[in-house]
């Protein structure tokens, strides 16, 4: 499985440590909130809301360099328009991997 990385954020920060920290802090704050919103909408079987939450999480996935996982998230987002949850477990694995990674940075 792909491992998250900070390549994109490092490139963006261009050596500015405070900007790097700011970007990481925002992701550390936004990601758990979005993840929780995702779980709530999933539990409520609110497919439209779940799709929106996946869309927002998708951006974090690609920011953290998870290109293959981004494709999975993208497919899952599209599947949700048809109320299809086939990829829910794959998506769950991505969220777990990111959650773990964010604790390490």
């Amino acid at each position: 499985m792909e491992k998250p990385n900070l390549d994109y954020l490092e490139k963006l920060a261009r050596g500015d440590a405070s900007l790097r920290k700011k970007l990481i802090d925002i992701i550390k704050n936004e990601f758990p909130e979005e993840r929780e919103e995702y779980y709530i909408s999933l539990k409520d079987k609110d497919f439209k809301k779940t799709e929106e939450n996946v869309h927002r999480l998708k951006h974090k996935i690609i920011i953290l360099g998870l290109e293959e996982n981004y494709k999975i998230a993208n497919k899952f987002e599209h599947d949700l328009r048809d109320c299809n949850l086939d990829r829910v477990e794959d998506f769950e694995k991505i969220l777990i991997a990111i959650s773990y990674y964010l604790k390490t940075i």
Partner: protein
Amino acid sequence: MNCIIVDDEQIARVIIKTLCDEIKFLGVVGEFSDAMQAIKFLNANEIDLIFLDIHMPDFNGVDFIKTLKNPPKIILTTSDSQFAIEAFEYDFIIDYLLKPIGLERFQKAILKAQKHEPSTNEVRFESEIKNDFYVNIDRRLIKINVESICIVEAKGDYIHIKTEEKNYVVHSTLRRIEEKLPDSLFLRVHRSFIINVKKIVDIEDNTVVIKKEVIPVSRSKRPELMKRLDLL
């Protein structure tokens, strides 16, 4: 040049702000997490450029664009190119940035915004029709020259755009592309086919040949097709 950023994600707003800070002549005068706040701001302030996330909950970027009476230039930002096609129909959309946005691509978009001369919808529309348009393929917007198109075929939820050199499969309808193609060149000869009349090499009773492909012609379309041909 002043600009505002409209995006429901904080990280996206900060990233765009960071990229804007790299451009000397570009100043961010507002950041908004929802479209309604941005509309209020636009009603009270003159803005040159908007970075607009097209995929926002409740009131998305396309809805936002439709509410603007005197829209400034807009650069769309999103992690899903699907919505961009619709929005690209507007005159004031300068460019489209797929997230995550890199500095180089961002700079190109700003250069476009700088060069962009406001034009009327009519002029822009005409020029787009005559030259080219964009299609969404695998999260990329690909420019297709209109005159290079030979055949457009509908297959299920997709259309196959066949040009002189390449074929493109696009999630769209024949009706939508028909609106983009100039009547002077293109004709819908069948419920599943639009053809470039200039590319016809052979005609039989109910078929035409283009690019070695035999295309059916509906009986009802045949008179119109015959009218278009420069017969001796």
